[in-house]
C-alpha cells in the first residue's frame, strides 16, 4: 500500500508500481511518478523540516519549484549527499533515502527551537544589533555559533563523483514553460517548420493543467491534451523537447541558460548519463510562458505543518492521488481555493469550512461549493492556527473584529492570489508595470526579442491564454523567418478562471499585533519584521530586503516578495509601484556548480602544454613546475638528492663541462616580409636594419608607456626574415601586441607574423664542452668561433633533420640553442644526450637555468621587472637605439617621471653573511632602527644560493641603486635584520670570457 492518504481512483499514477524510500531512517512506500513530497504526504507525513532561524517545525507549502520549507538532504552514497533539495521537486525512485535538515537531535524534538522562544533576540536585522557586545566576541563566538545553528543541510565532504555535460544550441523560437500557454506557442511555431526548443522544469508537461480539472481543450481533459501535444511536438524533426529543464538565466541577446536534470530521478543512473546537462541556447525569439505562483495568506502561525497553498493541495490530489488531510479548512481571498475545496470534497475529504476574506463574492465555484454542502464564511479571517508539529485548528473571526470561533482541522489550504512569474522577463532587462486593478506586476517594456504569454503576462483564463500564446508563437516564428503556417489553434472548450486576491498581512496580523505571521518562510521573516525595518529607517525595498532577509533564501522570495512589498508600502504610506520591486537575478532556482563547471575540472580545467622532450624528462624522474600552461622540468634529482643538492650539482656541471636544457617553451615568432626590419625597428628599442643575416641581437620590447614588456634573442635568418624569441609566459601577448601594431598603426608595412612556438623544439646545450657535444651531429654548418661567433644563427642539419642553430647563451658559458622541428625534438635530444654523456654533461631544469642567469646578472622579464621598469632602470640603456626616431615606447620613456633621479634601479646584493639567502620580495631599508612603518627603498627580485660563487646572490630594485655601489643596506625580516652590500649585477665571470671558453 502506498500510504493511508492515497485516494483510490484519484490522480494519474499507477498504484501497481510502488517504490520504497526512507525519510530520516523510517521506511515508506510510494508510487513511481511521485515526488518525495507527494509520497510523504500519502503516508501522512507533513513535518519535514525546521526553519532557518527559529527552528520552527515546517511542512510542505507548495507542490513545486517555489517550495521554501521542505528542503531535505538526499543521500545516494558516501560522496553523493545533496543538501537543500526541494522535496516537492525531487522525483521518487526506489531506494531513495532522504534526511531532514537543521534539527538536533530529531525533527520532532529540536533543541534549537529555543530560538523561537528567544525570538526577540532574533528580530529583523538582529545580526547587526543583538550580538555586538563585546565586540571581539562576534568573530570568535557569536558568528560561528549562529552560522552553525542556522545552517541548511550539510555540504558533501568528498569530491563530486558525477559528471555533467554542457551543450550549446541555437533555435528560432525558444519556448520556456510547458503549460497550456507554452504548448500552444510551441505548436504554433513548430507548425511553421522553424527550429523550436520547448523546456519545462517538471517531469511532465502540462503546468497547471496537472491540477485544473475544469480545463477542456480540443474535446479532451486538459492534461490529456497536453500529453498529446507533447507527443506531437516530440515527433517533429524541428522541435527539441526538454523536460526536467529549468531556464535559470536570461542573458544578453536572447542567450538563455537552462539546466536539465538528467538522472537525479533514476534509481541507478550509472556512469553513462550525466547527472545534469547545461544548455546554453541562443534563440532568435523567446516565448516566456512561465506561469504564475500562488501566494499564501499572512496570518499568525501560518507556517504550521499542514498549512499549504490551495493549488498545491489540488496538485497532490488530482495528479498524485493524495489527500493532504481528512478534515481540511480553507482560507482564501480569491476563487481558486474553492476549486481545491470542491475537488477534495468530491474525493471524500471533509471540508471543515471555507473562510473567505471577501465580503460577498459570487461566481460559479462559490455556488458549486455551496451546492456540495461546504460551509462558507464571508468577510471573515483566520486569525491564528493551532497546533505545533501539525496544524490542529483554525481560529476564525469577523475581519473587523468580533467573536472568535475555533474550528478543528488537520490541514489548511490558503490562497491570497497568484503572482505572475516575471523572473525571466525581468532578467532580460524588461521593465515590469504594476496593474493597480489586479494588484500585479506584469511585463511592461521589453528589452529583448521576447514575448510573455499566459499567466506570467497577467492573462486570465485558459481561452484567452491559448489564443494569446498561439498567436505569439506564430508571430515569433514569422519574425524568425518562417514562411508558412498551416496549423490549427487548439480550441478551449472549458476553462477555470480566477484573478485578484490580496497582498500583505491579513486581519489579525496587522500593525497593532506582535504575532508570528510569516511572509518569508525559509528565512523566518514575519510581517512584524518588515514593519520594524521600515520603522528603523529602511525606506528602499532593497534595504528592507537586506535588513530583514525577506526573499533572500534559496527560494528567492517566490512566494514572499509581493507580500513583503505590500507590507512595506503600507507602513511607508506609499503606493506599491512607488516602493518598487527588488531586482530579479539569475538563477531562477539553485543551479549546481557541477552543471556550470561541466567537464572543465581536473585535468580539463585548463589545457596543459607539454614539450616534445617532456616524456624523456618524465622518464628521468624530473620534478616539474607550472609555467603558465606549460609543464617545465624544474630539476632532475638523482638518488638521495633533494632540490638543493640537485640544483647545486646541475649548476656546477654546466660551468664545468656542459648541460642540456629543454628551452622549447620559449615563445617564437617569425617576422617575415620586405618590411620585416622596418617593423622590428618600430616594435623593439634596438636597431635592426644593419643587423647582418646570420647574426643575433638581444631585443627589448616596450609598451607605449616606456616600460619593459618583453625581451628575447632575435636572429636574422635573411634580409626579410627574423626568428624572434619571447619569454615563455609572454608569447601570446607579444604576438597580440605585434599584430595590433601591424594591423592598426603600421598597416602600410608588408610583413607577416607567424607564431612558431610549437613548430620548433629547442635544446639548449651550454657549457665549455657544448661545441664538442653538438659538432659531431651537425652537417653543413661551420662550428668554428670565426664562422659561428657568439650571437649568430645558421640553418643546416643535425642528426639529418633541419635545424636553426643559434649560438647564444643564457648561462654566460659558450652555448648553443638547437631548434629542430618539434616532431624530432625528443630524438635529437636523445642523440645530444648520448653525445653529452661522453663529456659528463648533465640535464638541468628551470631552477638551475635561473641560478646560472642570475650569476651573470641576466634579467627575467616579469621577475626582475614588474611593468614599471624602464630599460634604464634595468641597466639596459645599451640596448636602446640612440639614433632611432621612432619605436613603441620612445616617447613614454622620456616622460618626466621616467627620467627623474632616484628611480628604482636593478642592482646586485650580497649578504654580509654569504650563507644567508634572501627571500625574494623582501623589502629593503636604509636604516633598520627607524620606527615602523619603515621607509622602504626597494625589494629583492631574485635570490639564490650560488654553488659556483660559493655564496648567496641576489638582484634587487633599489631607489637610486647604481649610486649606492658598496653601500650597506638592510633587509628586516621576522627573525632579525639582514645586512647586505649593494654590488653590480654580475657575480660570475665579470669579463665574459667564458662565452668563448
Amino acid at each position, binding site marked *: 500500500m502506498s500510504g493511508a492518504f492515497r485516494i483510490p481512483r484519484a490522480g494519474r499514477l499507477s498504484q501497481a508500481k510502488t517504490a520504497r524510500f526512507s525519510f530520516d531512517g523510517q521506511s515508506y512506500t510510494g508510487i513511481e511518478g511521485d515526488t518525495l513530497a507527494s509520497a510523504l504526504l500519502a503516508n501522512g507525513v507533513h513535518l519535514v523540516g525546521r526553519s532557518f532561524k527559529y527552528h520552527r517545525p515546517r511542512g510542505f507549502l507548495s507542490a513545486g519549484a517555489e517550495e521554501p520549507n521542505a528542503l531535505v538532504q538526499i543521500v545516494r552514497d558516501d560522496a553523493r549527499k545533496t543538501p537543500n533539495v526541494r522535496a516537492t521537486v525531487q522525483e521518487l525512485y526506489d531506494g531513495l533515502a532522504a534526511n531532514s535538515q537543521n534539527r538536533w537531535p530529531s525533527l520532532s524534538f529540536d533543541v534549537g527551537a529555543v530560538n523561537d522562544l528567544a525570538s526577540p533576540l532574533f528580530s529583523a536585522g538582529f545580526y547587526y544589533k543583538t550580538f555586538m557586545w563585546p565586540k571581539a566576541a562576534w568573530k570568535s563566538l557569536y558568528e560561528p555559533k549562529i552560522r552553525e545553528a542556522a545552517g541548511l543541510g550539510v555540504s558533501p565532504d568528498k569530491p563530486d563523483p558525477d559528471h555533467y555535460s554542457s551543450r550549446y544550441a541555437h533555435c528560432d523560437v525558444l519556448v520556456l514553460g510547458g503549460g497550456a500557454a507554452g504548448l500552444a506557442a510551441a505548436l504554433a511555431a513548430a507548425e511553421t517548420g522553424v527550429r523550436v526548443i520547448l523546456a519545462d522544469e517538471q517531469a511532465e508537461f502540462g503546468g497547471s493543467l496537472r491540477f485544473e480539472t475544469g480545463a477542456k481543450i480540443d474535446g479532451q481533459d486538459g492534461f490529456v491534451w497536453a500529453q498529446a501535444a507533447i507527443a506531437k511536438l516530440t515527433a517533429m524533426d524541428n522541435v527539441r523537447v526538454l523536460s526536467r529543464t529549468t531556464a535559470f538565466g536570461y*542573458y*544578453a*541577446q536572447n542567450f538563455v541558460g537552462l539546466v536539465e536534470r538528467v538522472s537525479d530521478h533514476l534509481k541507478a543512473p550509472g556512469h553513462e548519463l550525466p547527472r545534469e546537462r547545461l544548455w546554453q541556447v541562443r534563440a532568435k525569439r523567446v516565448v516566456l510562458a512561465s506561469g504564475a505562483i500562488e501566494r499564501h495568506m499572512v496570518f499568525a502561525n501560518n507556517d504550521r505543518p499542514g498549512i499549504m497553498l490551495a493549488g498545491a493541495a489540488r496538485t497532490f490530489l488530482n495528479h498524485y492521488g493524495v489527500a493532504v488531510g481528512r478534515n481540511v479548512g480553507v482560507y482564501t481571498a480569491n476563487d481558486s481555493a474553492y476549486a481545491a475545496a470542491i475537488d477534495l470534497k468530491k474525493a471524500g475529504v471533509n471540508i471543515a469550512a471555507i473562510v473567505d476574506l471577501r465580503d460577498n463574492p459570487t461566481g460559479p465555484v462559490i455556488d458549486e461549493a455551496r451546492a456540495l454542502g461546504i460551509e462558507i464564511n464571508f468577510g471573515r479571517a483566520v486569525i491564528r492556527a493551532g497546533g505545533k508539529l501539525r496544524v490542529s485548528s483554525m481560529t476564525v473571526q469577523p475581519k473587523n473584529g468580533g467573536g472568535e470561533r475555533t474550528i478543528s482541522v488537520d490541514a489548511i489550504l490558503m490562497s491570497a492570489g497568484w503572482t505572475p512569474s516575471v523572473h525571466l522577463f525581468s532578467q532580460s532587462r524588461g521593465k515590469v508595470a504594476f496593474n493597480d486593478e489586479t494588484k500585479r506586476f506584469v511585463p511592461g517594456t521589453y*528589452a529583448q526579442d521576447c514575448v510573455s504569454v499566459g499567466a506570467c503576462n497577467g492573462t486570465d483564463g485558459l481561452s484567452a491564454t491559448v489564443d494569446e500564446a498561439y498567436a505569439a508563437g506564430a508571430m515569433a516564428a514569422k519574425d524568425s523567418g518562417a514562411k508558412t503556417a498551416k496549423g490549427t489553434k487548439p480550441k478551449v472548450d472549458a476553462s477555470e478562471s480566477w484573478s485578484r486576491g490580496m497582498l500583505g498581512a491579513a486581519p489579525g496580523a496587522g500593525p497593532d499585533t506582535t504575532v508570528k505571521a510569516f511572509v518569508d518562510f525559509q528565512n523566518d521573516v514575519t510581517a512584524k519584521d518588515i514593519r520594524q525595518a521600515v520603522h528603523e529607517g529602511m525606506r528602499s525595498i532593497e534595504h528592507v530586503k537586506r535588513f530583514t532577509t525577506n526573499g533572500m533564501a534559496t527560494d528567492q522570495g517566490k512566494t514572499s516578495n509581493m507580500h513583503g512589498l505590500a507590507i512595506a508600502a503600507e507602513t511607508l504610506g506609499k503606493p506599491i509601484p512607488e516602493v518598487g520591486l527588488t531586482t530579479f537575478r539569475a538563477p531562477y532556482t539553485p543551479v549546481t556548480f557541477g552543471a556550470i563547471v561541466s567537464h572543465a575540472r581536473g585535468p580539463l580545467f585548463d589545457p596543459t602544454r607539454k614539450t616534445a622532450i617532456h616524456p624523456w624528462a618524465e622518464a628521468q624522474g624530473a620534478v616539474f613546475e607550472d609555467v603558465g600552461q606549460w609543464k617545465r622540468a624544474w630539476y632532475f634529482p638523482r638518488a638521495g638528492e633533494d632540490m638543493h643538492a640537485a640544483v647545486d650539482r646541475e649548476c656546477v656541471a654546466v660551468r664545468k663541462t656542459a648541460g642540456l636544457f629543454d628551452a622549447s617553451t620559449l615563445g617564437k615568432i617569425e617576422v617575415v616580409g620586405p618590411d620585416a626590419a622596418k617593423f622590428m625597428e618600430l616594435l623593439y628599442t634596438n636597431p635592426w636594419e644593419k643587423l647582418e643575416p646570420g647574426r643575433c641581437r638581444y631585443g627589448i620590447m616596450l609598451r*607605449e608607456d616606456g616600460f619593459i614588456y618583453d625581451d628575447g634573442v632575435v636572429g636574422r635568418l635573411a634580409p626579410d626574415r627574423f626568428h624572434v624569441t619571447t619569454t615563455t609566459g609572454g608569447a601570446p601577448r607579444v604576438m597580440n601586441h605585434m599584430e*595590433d601594431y601591424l*594591423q*592598426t598603426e603600421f598597416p602600410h608595412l608588408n610583413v607577416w607574423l607567424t607564431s612558431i612556438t610549437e613548430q620548433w623544439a629547442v635544446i639548449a646545450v651550454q657549457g665549455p664542452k657544448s661545441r664538442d657535444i653538438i659538432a659531431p651531429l651537425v652537417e653543413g654548418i661551420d662550428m668554428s668561433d670565426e664562422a659561428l661567433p657568439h650571437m649568430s644563427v645558421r640553418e643546416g642539419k643535425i642528426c639529418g633533420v633541419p635545424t636553426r642553430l643559434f649560438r647564444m647563451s643564457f648561462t654566460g658559458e659558450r652555448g648553443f640553442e638547437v631548434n629542430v622541428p618539434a616532431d624530432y625534438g625528443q630524438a635529437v635530444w636523445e642523440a645530444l644526450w648520448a653525445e653529452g654523456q661522453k663529456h659528463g654533461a648533465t640535464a638541468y631544469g628551470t631552477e638551475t637555468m635561473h641560478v646560472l642567469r642570475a650569476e651573470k646578472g641576466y634579467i627575467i622579464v616579469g621577475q626582475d621587472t614588474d611593468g614599471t621598469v624602464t630599460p634604464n632602470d634595468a641597466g639596459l640603456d645599451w640596448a636602446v637605439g640612440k639614433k632611432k626616431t621612432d619605436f613603441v615606447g620612445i*616617447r613614454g620613456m622620456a616622460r618626466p617621471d621616467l627620467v627623474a633621479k632616484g628611480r628604482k634601479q636593478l642592482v646586485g646584493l650580497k649578504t654580509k653573511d654569504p650563507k644567508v639567502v634572501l627571500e625574494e620580495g623582501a623589502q629593503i631599508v636604509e636604516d633598520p632602527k627607524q620606527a615602523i612603518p619603515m621607509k622602504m627603498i626597494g625589494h629583492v627580485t631574485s635570490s639564490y644560493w650560488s654553488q659556483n660563487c660559493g655564496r648567496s646572490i641576489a638582484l634587487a630594485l633599489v631607489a637610486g641603486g647604481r649610486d649606492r655601489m658598496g653601500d650597506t643596506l638592510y633587509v628586516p625580516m621576522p627573525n632579525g635584520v639582514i645586512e647586505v652590500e649593494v654590488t653590480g649585477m654580475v657575480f660570475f665571470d665579470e669579463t665574459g670570457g667564458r662565452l668563448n671558453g
Partner: protein
Amino acid sequence: MLLIRCPYCEEERPELEFRNAGEAHIARSANMAGESDDDFEKFFFIRSNPKGIIYERWRHMHGCARFFNAVRDTVTDKFVMTYKAGEPKPAKLPGVAK
C-alpha cells in the same frame, strides 16, 4: 553573452571569440618622439567613459584574428555597428537618435 558582427568575416559570432582592445580612433602620432607631455598624456592616458555610445577596438581573437572597430552603447551593452580598422568614425549610426 553578446553577439558581435566581425566586419571581416561578415558574420555574427559569440563574444567568447572576441577580445576588447580599448578605445578606438586614438591615432598614434607620426612624430611620436616629438610629442609634448600634454599631447602624450592625451594620447596614452586619457580615455572617454561615456554613458551611451562608445567607439571601441575589438579583435576577433579566435576567428580571423583581425582588429576592427565597434560602436557600442554602454547603457544597453548592445553593439550598434562594427567596421573595419582604418575606416573613419561613422557619421550616422543606425537606430541611434541625434
